[in-house]
Structures are given as C-alpha cells and as structure tokens.
C-alpha cells in the first residue's frame, strides 16, 4: 500500500485535528488534572468521540462502528497526542476492541462491540505484571474451579482500570512463567467478589490502576478466545496498542517540535532571535528529520495492521521503538530550548515531556521492542 493517506483518511485526520483542538485542548487537560477528577477524563467528551465515530473506529459498521481501521485510529491518536486529550480511546477503542475482534465469539462481539462504539462500555486490558513490559511474564493463575476458573494475582499499570466496566485479564491456565502457551484471556467484571482496584497517580496524569485478583470466580463463557491460546490475541492487542501509541507519540513529537520552532522564532537573546543561532538551527533541523522518520514508520505499522501483513508485529515494534526515541528527543530538546520557562508548570512543553515518557514505557521501550523486532527477523 502506498505510504500516503488516501482521501478518506485525510478527512479523518482533518476532522480529528479540528475536534480535539476545539473540544479537548491542553487547557481541558489541566482542568481535569488540577481538579484531581476521579474519572480522569470527561465522559461528555467520550460521548462526543463516540458520535464522531472515534470510539468505534475499529468496530465494523455491522456492529455499529465506523470501521476507519488502524490508520484511522492512528490519526485520531495523533490528534490526541498533539492536544494531550484525555479519554479511554487507547484502553477501550483500541486495545479491547482489537482483542474482541481477534478473539471474541460472535456472541461476545455482539455483546460488547456496539457498546464500545456507542461510548457506553469502558474496557481495560490487565496484562502487565512487571514494571518493565514483559508480556509473557504472566504469574496470575486461573485454576479450574466449578464450571469455570478461579483467578489469583496482581496486575499493574492497567490503563483506565479504575473506570472500566469490564476487564480483560491475562492469566495462566498452564505452563510456566514466561511461556507463551498456557495464557488465557478472561472477561472479568470489576465488581466481582475478590477484585480490588486502586488508581495509581502517574506522572502524565493519565489513568492507570493496580488490579488485585483474590479468588475471583469466572465462568467458562468469560473466556476470550481459547483456553491456553490467549497469547496470539494478546500480542495482536498489544501490537495495536504499540502502533497507536507510536501515533500518539508522533502527535506529541510534532507538536513539541512546532512549538519549539515557533519559540526559536520569537524569543530574543543577545539582541537577536535565538533561532538565528546556528547550533540551535542544526538541532532543530535534525529534529525535523527525526519527526519525519517517526511519521513514516508509524503509518507503515498502522497500514500493516489494517492489511493483516504478516510483518505487522515487526512494524509495530519498529514504530514503537523509533517513535519513542523521537518523542524523547523532541520533548527533551523542547524543554532545553525553551530554557527556564520550559521547566515551569505554566508552559505546556513539560506536559508533553511527561506524556512522552509514559507512552515510551507503555508496551515496551526501544530496549524491548528493538530486541523483539530483531528476534522476529532472526537475529
């Protein structure tokens, strides 16, 4: 597929850019943050996002979604990155929707996908257990119990875990810690007995929660996919997350870069604009190149997911690895070139740096994703 947006996609991009700039700019982010809002996002905004087709971006039209696909989801995420907009987009519309699409039965799809698309159902993926992303490390157990399973374990860094109406929990039904075989995904009611959820305040003011499962009884019908074969579903959901986070980080990088270039054109020092200093010009020019590289890998990763390309995992890791490094560079350079005011909470550039850092850790940094892509390529 050509590495350009087609007309429909260009329209999605324009409408997403316009929407988030108007409806959820950084001032909205600050308001939620400073009020220590218990939900962590604006439910009215999420409703509007559903009306725009954003919540159902991956949901086929037959299930009430807009079916824009991953390229569409990435464009929405990019606009979210540009505006630091808060919403359950990643957890519900991307991670959970992908898991359901890949692994759900017809009944599960019919039950959940339309509600995701309409903005009425929030979901969260509870997979990570280690602080550094290691998805095959699943120590949470699912032991046979009655006509179902009993879950025990602790999940950390569960995005939107504290507001989710339904959790997707990765637990081990067989095999040893580290094995990919033997992992099973379960749809778990967060209000079920034995589930306790605590929100964790994060540096980027986004929602993450610790989920403790203590003898939580689930039914056989709550299994997503097949028992012991959850890994492929989990991988695909995480790859969707990686590619869409790369897109969000692209928005973060591009916005930080543009803000910084604007600052270089307006800030006076030593009687001239600081953008006239060649050392800063070269750094800005280099950063321009890096942002463009991030844009290319991100688009390829999103397209690969849409096409079912068998290298989709490689491209997702490539985009996540490169996108993360570029976002680090763009936000670090942004703060440094803003000087002292870049360090103040009053200016936005620091908010972008915080988000870049958190997005970089989520679903693996360059160490994880670089290693993964090399292994997938046989070295």
């Amino acid at each position, binding site marked *: 597929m050509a590495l350009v947006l087609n007309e429909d996609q260009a329209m999605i991009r324009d409408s997403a850019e316009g929407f988030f700039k108007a409806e959820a700019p950084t001032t909205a982010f600050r308001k939620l943050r400073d009020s220590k809002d218990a939900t962590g996002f604006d439910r009215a905004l999420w409703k509007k996002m559903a009306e725009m087709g954003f919540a159902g971006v991956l949901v086929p039209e037959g299930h009430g979604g807009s079916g824009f696909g991953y390229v569409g989801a990435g464009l929405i995420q990019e606009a979210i990155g540009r505006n630091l907009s808060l919403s359950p987009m990643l957890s519900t519309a991307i991670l959970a929707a992908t898991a359901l699409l890949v692994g759900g039965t017809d009944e599960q799809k019919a039950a959940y996908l339309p509600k995701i698309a309409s903005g009425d159902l929030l979901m969260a993926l509870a997979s*990570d257990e*280690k*602080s*550094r*992303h290691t998805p095959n490390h699943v120590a949470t157990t699912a032991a046979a119990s009655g006509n179902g399973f009993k879950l025990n374990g602790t999940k*950390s*860094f569960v995005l939107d875990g504290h507001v989710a109406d339904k959790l997707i929990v990765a637990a081990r039904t067989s095999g040893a810690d580290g094995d990919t075989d033997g992992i099973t995904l379960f749809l778990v009611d967060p209000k079920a007995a034995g589930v306790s959820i605590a929100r*964790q*305040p*994060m*540096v*980027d*003011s986004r929602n*993450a929660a610790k989920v403790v499962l203590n003898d939580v009884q689930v039914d056989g019908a709550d299994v997503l996919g097949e028992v012991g074969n959850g890994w492929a579903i989990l991988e695909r959901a995480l790859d969707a997350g990686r590619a869409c986070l790369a897109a969000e980080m692209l928005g973060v990088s591009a916005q930080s870069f543009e803000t910084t270039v604007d600052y270089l054109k307006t*800030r*006076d*020092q*030593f*009687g001239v604009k600081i953008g006239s*200093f*060649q*050392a*800063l010009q070269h750094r800005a020019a280099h950063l321009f190149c890096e942002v463009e590289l991030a844009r290319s890998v991100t688009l390829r990763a999103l397209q690969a997911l849409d096409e079912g390309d068998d290298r989709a995992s490689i491209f997702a890791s490539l985009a996540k690895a490169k996108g993360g490094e570029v976002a*680090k560079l763009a936000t*670090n350079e942004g*703060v*440094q070139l803003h*000087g*002292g005011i*870049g*360090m*103040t*909470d*009053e200016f936005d550039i*620091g*908010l972008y*740096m*915080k988000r870049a*850092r*958190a997005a970089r*850790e*989520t679903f693996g*940094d*360059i*160490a*994880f994703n*670089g*290693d993964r892509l090399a292994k997938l390529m046989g070295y």
Partner: protein
Amino acid sequence: MSDALEQFRSETRAWLEANCPAEMRTPQTSEDETCWGGRNFKFTSQAQKDWMDRMGAKGWTVPEWPKAYGGGGLSKEEAKVLSSELRRIKARSPLNSFGIWMLGPALLKFGSEEQKKHYLPQIARGEIRWCQGYSEPGSGSDLASLRTSAEDKGDHYLVNGQKVWTSYADKADWIFCLVRTDPTVAKHHGISFLLFDMASPGVSTAPIKLISGASPFCQTFFDNVKVPKENLVGVPGKGWDIAKYLLTHEREMIGAMDTGDARETMAQVAARKIGLENGTIADAALRTDIIRHEIDAWAFALTMERVKDTAKAGQGVGALSSMLKYYGTELNKQRMELLMSIGGSDGLLWEGDNKGDGDLSRGWLRSRANSIEGGTSEINLNIIAKRVLELPGA
C-alpha cells in the same frame, strides 16, 4: 602532620564531642531538616538551633573566613582537619546558606571594609538568610540584558522591576541583586550589585510551580523599593564583574554535584529491578545503555578528581573547570533517563502510598533543569569555544 595541627585536631575533637548534639549526628532523612537560619527560620529542634549557634559563634560555619568577619580564621590545613573531624562524627551541616556560598565570597572580594564587618558575621551566625536576584523573565541566558532599574535618588536608589528563579525568596531576609543603575551605557556597563532587605516596602514574591511540582523558586517583584546607597557593593556600573565572578563559582559548584557514588547504584538498581541472568543484567539492550553511561560517568568522575589533584599540585585548571558544569549536568540528565527506563512503570508514579513513590519521576523532571540553571549547556559550550579553544566570535 605537624604538632600544632595534631594539637588542633585533638582540641577540635574535644570541642565537637562537647558541643555537637547527639541528634545532629544522625543522618538527615529529608530536605526539610536542612538548617537555613535567618530571622524567621523554624528550627526542627532545639538541637538544630544549638548546633548552628555554637558553630556560628566559633566561626566554624565559615572556617576559612577571617575572624574579624565572623569566620573561623583557620588555615587550609586546619579547615581540612575540622572537616574530617565533622565527617568522623557524621555531623550534619550546621548551616546551609546562599550567604556562605555566594554572597560571602563576593563580599570578601568586592565589598568595602564596612560591608564585610556588617554582613559577613550575620551570615556566619545564620542570622540573616539571603537570596539571589539575578535572572529576569526576559533575560534568560543573556543575563546582562536585565532591566530591573535602580534610579539614583540622591540618598537612596529606587528599585523597580522583576526577578525570576529567586530561590527561597519567600523565606529569605535579604537579597543580593543585580540592577541597572545606568540605562544609557552598553548593557554590561550599567549594572550594579545591590543588597537590600526583603521586608522593605514594595517587595513581594510569588512561588513558581515546576513540572516536577512545588519548588523553592519564586518570582520577585520590586515596586518603588527604596534602598540606601551604601548598600551598593563595589563600584556603581561594575556589578557585572561581581556577577561573572559568582557565575563561574556557581558553575563549578553545580558541575561538581550529583556524581557521588551514583555509579555503583545504577547497576545495583538495575540488578534489583530487572534481575541478573548468568551474572549480567537480564535486559541486554538496557545493560548496554547502562554500561555506556557508566563508562562516561566514571570518566567524568575521574576528570573531576584530576581537576582537584591538578589544582592541589598548584597547576592551572582553568581550561578543565570550564567543562565541569556542561558535562556533569548532561550526564546527570542521562542518568535520570536511564533510571527511569530501569524503573519502567514504577518510575512513572507521581505519588503513592509508599515512602519514595514519585521521587524518581520528580527527580527525573527536576534534573532537566540542570542544563539550564546557572548557565545553560549552550552558554557553557560557547564559553569553552571562546575562552578555552579561542575560536573566533560568530
């Protein structure tokens, strides 16, 4: 060691034994326990106050300053003995102060005899807490473009303007401040160095919130503040010389900070958080990054050591000292980035139930200012290019 020095050591040891309260020999557990002195300082305990007062009375808060100015009047060798005896009993610092670190050295070099007699003993005894008024919202790296004006009104200056990044301005008693006394000459030549009471009518402050959270920094506003003319240090219009002297001083201090034994710790942290496999950190890519950083950090620590040893050997270190701030702060930022990577999602915590939750993320954010405050990395590279490499002006 000479007999006299041995004698001094045993006397010092005896005096410390008698005068350093037991509580002041326990490790400080937080920033809040730092003693800053000053008119309104809330001592955490009587022991903290006693310790400051006793050391202050002896002049040992500033051991090498002359006795006439409230100092200890110690020789370099004696000061070393005192410092080693303090370390021996693990004594806390009796007094931290911008007066000791910054204003004192400036007054000793540029102040009048009267000023030295008046201000230095107050600093030594922790009676007056000082803050530093240098940066302004528009000035940034171009410090000399400052616009806070001090108009000559015969018997006093009338100060108007605004400072920013004034550490602890809201807690300080007095300020040492760069002001423009002559707007008609080239920017470096119209600056003067002024001292005044923060309680003067027209002075107000507002705290600055950083990306890392609350900070000691303030914005400081001057609205028709009257300052007696004798409060000017040195020659009117020559304040820039004092500023440069203090900036160099500050750069060397900041560059030297934050190295310590961090080296050891990063590998330990990684081993604990990530685990070892066959004796090496299990994440090979992250381990490579850690090794590369450790190599640089160690090379930098050895360079600091070499600078010190070179100075001790009586050889010039000008060229070397100019790089410490630049390289040291860039390294520290890199170190915090790596610690964040090692921490993973734990490093992203902003606050939490456990003591220390959020320290890492806030420390990481705070470290980003290292290469901005006290002269940006860019300014330091300019300085090396110009003063050390003698490259032509752009």
